[in-house]
């Protein structure tokens, strides 16, 4: 067990492409940290640099306080779980799990004992003599985990370990991974593109985009105070709604009504003057106006025609259109929106789609007007020119 420190790490390929740019990240001992981001953001490259499978172009990588830049993977004492599990097909489950110990010339009896222990934890005991080809996807995934935990390494590195499983199994294994990590207390770096995994698994989450670290923090921190529009759009499902707005006096004028500025937002704006602004509203900060009761005063109400209503059982997702009055044209913003997988920010005159999460008790119906309520204290404000958050 050890801490991992990335200091100004850069990965540059011979053609000049920088997959990871000046990455600084400290992972304290026994922390479970998630690297998350859209595909191609450099998260896997970062992980593979920690593993030693990719060379580090610039910067220093420390595991347990020692610089390991020039050490081969085998000398770093880390275990890795691969996306496709990478089980050795010619070895049995037991041999797969004991391979690393065998290479380390551990006593045969000790290997058997450690493998048995791990197999018990992972519910693999009756499969120890089978070959990986005869196992189900979930079992293979557990063998891959087992191969990592028998070694008791300094750190676990996991590269999208659950992405090959079906949805149900993924949720089940997610809990399992979390439980095992908590019990062993081994420092873990976990790469995923799935923001749900990121939010549920990690002690901390590091969001990456185009090789750059966007924000590192506790899941709730990222959710409540995204540093920029990319993190805001990436964390949370369904994604945050964005709309161009302008400020008049002490109000944010949005297509759905005027929202008072918070103190922090006002202070941030004073320094900056008034550039183009984007408001971000999470679907869960909307509600059916009929259901809010005495909270009504804390927000604003407006009428919207519901285009589509999706019922998830415990909640409804209501989609409606708003017409933007402001034009925001920012190349960076469009790229951010694409990366984040959110809908484009609508410009003036265009209709933008907004999704609202409603209680299932809501009477809202498809194709009909509904009175919705917005919690104005939860409106996020971003500077359109650079995507940065304004205010706390």
């Amino acid at each position, binding site marked *: 067990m050890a801490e991992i420190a990335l200091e100004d790490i850069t990965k540059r390929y011979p053609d000049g492409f920088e997959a990871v740019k000046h990455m600084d990240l400290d992972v304290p001992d026994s922390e479970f940290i998630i690297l998350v981001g859209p595909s191609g953001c450099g998260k896997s490259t970062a992980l593979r640099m920690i*593993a030693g499978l990719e060379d580090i172009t610039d910067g220093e990588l420390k595991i347990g306080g020692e610089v390991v830049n020039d050490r081969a993977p*085998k000398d770093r004492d880390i275990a890795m779980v*691969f996306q496709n599990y990478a089980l050795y097909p*010619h070895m049995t489950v037991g041999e797969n799990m004991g391979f690393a110990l065998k290479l380390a010339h551990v006593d045969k009896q000790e290997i058997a004992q450690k493998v048995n222990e791990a197999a018990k934890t992972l519910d693999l005991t009756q499969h120890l003599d089978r070959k990986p080809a005869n196992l189900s996807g979930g079992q293979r995934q557990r063998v891959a985990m087992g*191969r990592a935990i028998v070694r008791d390494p300094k750190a676990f590195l996991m590269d999208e370990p659950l992405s090959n499983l079906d949805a149900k199994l993924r949720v089940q294994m997610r809990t399992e991974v979390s439980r095992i990590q908590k019990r062993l207390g081994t420092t873990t770096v976990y790469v995923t593109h799935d923001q749900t995994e990121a939010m549920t698994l990690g002690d901390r989450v590091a969001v990456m985009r185009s090789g750059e670290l966007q924000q590192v923090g506790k899941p709730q921190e990222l959710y409540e105070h995204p540093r920029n529009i990319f993190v805001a759009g990436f964390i949370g499902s369904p994604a945050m709604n964005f709309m161009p707005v302008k400020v008049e006096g002490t109000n944010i004028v949005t297509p759905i009504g005027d929202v008072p500025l918070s103190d922090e937002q006002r202070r941030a704006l004073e320094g900056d003057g008034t550039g183009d602004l984007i408001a971000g509203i999470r679907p869960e900060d909307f509600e059916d106006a009929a259901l809010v009761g005495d909270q009504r005063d804390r927000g604003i109400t407006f009428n919207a025609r519901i285009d589509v209503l999706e019922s998830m059982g415990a909640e409804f997702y209501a989609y409606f259109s708003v017409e933007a009055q402001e034009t925001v044209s920012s190349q960076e913003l469009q790229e951010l929106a694409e990366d984040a997988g959110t809908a484009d920010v609508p410009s003036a005159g265009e209709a933008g789609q907004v999704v609202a999460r409603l209680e299932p008790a809501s009477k809202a119906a498809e194709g009909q007007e509904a009175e919705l309520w917005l919690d104005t204290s939860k409106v996020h404000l971003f500077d359109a020119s650079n995507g940065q958050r304004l205010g706390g």
Partner: protein
Amino acid sequence: MPSTGREKATWGVINVVVILAALIPVVWIMSLSFKDPSTIADGNFFPSKWSTENYSGIFQTSEFTDALRNSIGIALITTVIAVTVACMAAYAIARLNFPGKVLILTAALAVAMFPPISIVGPLFNIWREVGLYDTWPGLIIPYLSFSLPLAIYTLSAFFREIPWELEQAAQVDGATPFQAFRKVIVPLAAPGVFTTAILVFIFAWNDFLFAISLTSTNAARTVPAALSAFPGESQFTQPIGSVAAAAVIVTIPIIIMVLIFQRRIVAGLTAGAVKG
């Protein structure tokens, strides 16, 4: 698949013709080998008088037993060296990006395409000068140069099929690159290694051109070359029976190997053609 009776009959006839065309020479030489020396030229397809005299005869001459020893030795050594070297070369070609990779592959292919007959003359002269004429290395070296390209091609097709993650997993598990190669990659490529070994062995075992040109005595002469030099029982008799018996004997190991590894050879020759 043929469905109607007529189609079945047509296919049946075609199959029989093909099988007969392939088998008649084999049966013929076998029947010759079992003929009594006095009836060898009697014109009958099947022996009128069965005898194993030809077989016992050839094993009493050192021409044949020495040639058999040479054949086995030379073919085995060629196979071991070719497969070992080709494994490493193919691995590098499949896994690494290095300058000149394309050049190496092209050169290997060019060597495989090169007509052996064109180098026999120069080789004969060179071997006599450097003292390799009529020695085992004198045959092993040209066999290697012609079998290596084939071996490298077959093996690199196999290595390419093995997911790279396996090797990385092994490295993270604490293996040196060589351990990862030996304990993970080679066992997985075993069918390919087998196939390659058999193909190389057959090539070296069957070669006649180099064997006849670069040897002169029992010191290095292999069976195919020795057969052509078999003396008759007397100056005036043709050694047909002995040649037939020797031909049957040298074919047996090949047939056994092909029968045992038939599936693997087919898999090996088509590897890389279709992603499984």
